[in-house]
């Protein structure tokens, strides 16, 4: 479904990604793990069209993406939920959700989707009229996911959804991610929380210093001795 072929990315004159290749098949959950500053977010932003790769290609359902603008990419059904939620703080919960249906393809079914999302996250339903900034961290994460789902993504990319959340909420977040997949949305997940994300993943990639160093099924990666090494150095 999504195919990234050997992309290299620069910030100014500094190369941050080298030869990143990865695939996400229809209906899969794929995780990218790796320590801080390994290049995970950069990879997602390149797929989303925020950054331009200097080499390599990106295809989504056979269509080349790496020359398209971010709004066109969202329009194709490739939606990213950014790290740190990035809600619109001075808009209400409902407005945040509504803006999720900004892409033309999502507007038609707005009310249906909204109902579905509010069923999925009842807490948001109770707080529809509140400003997004008044929510707790966990609620904000639910809203961010809800907002992303409003765009009716075919492939949903999540960047560090567990960041800064209490353990219980983290658990819940990953359950929700599994649910979303079971309802037919493909998932590309970027996480520091190796255990959770590899457990729910069909396949995983380990990034280190801008390169992919390991690639396997989620289970196999968890068993891999090299994984701990990539994190703790021994």
């Amino acid at each position: 479904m999504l195919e990234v072929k050997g992309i290299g990315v620069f910030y100014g004159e500094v190369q941050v990604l080298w030869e990143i290749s990865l695939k996400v098949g229809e209906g899969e959950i794929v995780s990218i793990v790796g320590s801080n500053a390994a290049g995970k977010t950069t990879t997602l932003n390149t797929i989303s069209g925020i950054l331009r790769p200097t080499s390599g290609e990106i295809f989504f359902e056979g269509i080349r993406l790496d020359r398209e603008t971010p709004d066109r990419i969202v329009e194709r059904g490739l939606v990213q939920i950014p790290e740190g939620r990035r809600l619109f703080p001075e808009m209400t919960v409902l407005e945040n959700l509504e803006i999720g249906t900004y892409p033309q393809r999502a507007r038609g079914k707005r009310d249906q989707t909204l109902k579905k999302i509010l069923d999925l996250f009842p807490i948001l339903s109770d707080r529809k009229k509140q400003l997004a900034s008044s929510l707790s961290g966990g609620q904000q994460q639910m809203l961010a996911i809800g907002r992303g789902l409003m765009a009716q993504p075919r492939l949903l990319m999540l960047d560090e959804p567990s960041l800064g959340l209490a353990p219980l909420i983290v658990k819940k977040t990953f359950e929700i991610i599994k649910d979303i997949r079971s309802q037919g949305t493909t998932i590309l997940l970027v996480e520091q929380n190796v255990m959770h994300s590899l457990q729910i993943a069909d396949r995983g990639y380990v990034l280190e210093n801008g390169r992919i160093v390991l690639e396997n099924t989620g289970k196999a990666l968890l068993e891999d001795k090299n994984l701990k090494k990539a994190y703790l150095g021994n």
Partner: protein
Amino acid sequence: MFFKTLFRPQIYIPFLGLTLLILTPVLVKSPFLLHIVIITILYAALGSAWNIIGGYGGQLSLGHTVFFGIGAYTSTLLYLKFGLSPWLGMLLGAFLSMIVAAIVGYPSFRLRGPFFVLSTIAFGEVMHIIAINWRDVTGGSVGLGIQFEPAFKNFIFSTKVPYAYIVIGLLVLILAVVTLMEKSRMGYYLSALRENEDGAKVLGINTARYKLLALMISAFFTSLGGTFYAQYILFIDPYDILTLSLSIDMALVSIIGGIGTIIGPVIGSFFMIPLGEFLRGTLGGAFRGIHLIIYGTILILVVIYMPQGIVEKIRKKYRVLVSKLPGFRPEEILSLRMVPGSHILQTANARSFGEHPTPFLLEVQNLSKYFGGLAAVSCVDFRLRQSEILGLIGPNGAGKTTLFNLICGFYAPDDGQILYKGKNIEGFRPHILCQKGIGRTFQIVKPFGNMSVLDNVIAGAYCRAPKNAIARAKAEEILKFVGLWENRNLIAKSLTLPGKKRLEMAKVLATQPDLILLDEVMAGLNQREISDATVLIKKINEEGITVMVIEHVMSVIMSLCHQIIVLHHGEKIAEGAPEKISNDPKVIEAYLGEEYLIARG
């Protein structure tokens, strides 16, 4: 020796330029042309004065007309009412301008970007309105005329030539001051705070003080220009000398010529003013304002297409020209007084070691910091021995950088205290702490982008160096020490990321700290660069500097640190030697999730 240097084009070209300038008033016979020359040079002088704060200091004032006006009104009023010689009035006006600059500048400098600009515009407008309405003193909108009584003591001359020499003198004076300033502590400090204010603070620079000082100097010279103008035209009114468009013109010549360079405002005004005066002279009757349309258009085009100004475009050509002229020799690399042996950074510790009663350089007690009710750092305790390397690790958002910001004085703690050399350092601002020997780097590097690598480090070295030459020598030593010597002449923003991280360390080392806090100096580096940086940190430590390091690359932390502290959700969850930490279940849980342990047994 002196004569030899005189025959080099780098020296004789400016001298030729100066000679030409001095000859102009004699050569130009037409009063109209001479008027244009005088006005052009006046604007060059005003632009150069503006450039001190606007260009070097990066504080875009559009209120400089006030200082010009104070100069003009002070000397004129003192002359008209008390018969005081305008020469004296000029100095009094200039001092008055300095005082006003200090009073107005101090609060305004809290503002940044467009807000600072707005506050200066508002200030200028208030003065404009006051001058119009305070008729008894300023003559209001009617203005003030000065009787034409030529005499030296009256600062009135019957021909334009003396005026031309006075204004040339003013320009040369300002340029001399700017030139001296540029290569001194003040120049480095201003450029540094313009490029990155936080980055400047941690090098011990009292940014507020230097901005104020620059504004006062700038106001002083602008004010001299105001008196000159009053005595030259012999008439002043608020529409001519206290108006926003005058402030704009001063900034405009600098921006078009090249902001923050010695010659920029001069080039800008030599290019723009004659053009404007010519257009005004020829087309001004039928097409009033045409020169300002041209000015505005050029300004827009310059900021879009050559934001560095004309200077940037001709600099290369000038260098080529210079290199082809007789007598050319490339700039000599200043000889390096490399200290024999390895104790390059030693002075820092010699200064302080043994004075304080405890064996701990830094003691953090029960430290907490909240952001909006959320504890970013919560009851953290630790002690750091002299000459140790302490690692600070923890997942994203654990509060590591916040802890650094607390130690360096960027944040005030909500609870607990920090003892440095046995003394509580609460309430000390970052530049003071740097002067006391706490140096830090930033996770997101803060190089002074448009300065050379060497100049970046010199800005740090001034923290301890009493003289320019010593600061320079120190900076050169340090560049060799960290391995950036080859890149010393590069513009800092053109360095690669590893280079910038290294520069970050070099700048801090130049302040000769006793304690250095390194915030993720390895992030984004590849394996080889990481091992280079590790070696460098070890070298720094061997010089006797105590190191505290935040790092995500675990292999580095494990091999480098004597002690490690682990933060998670703002709390210290583990502390100890590296081997102990890497097998601590709590740590593994924090990093990999609790189930990792269960799953792996």
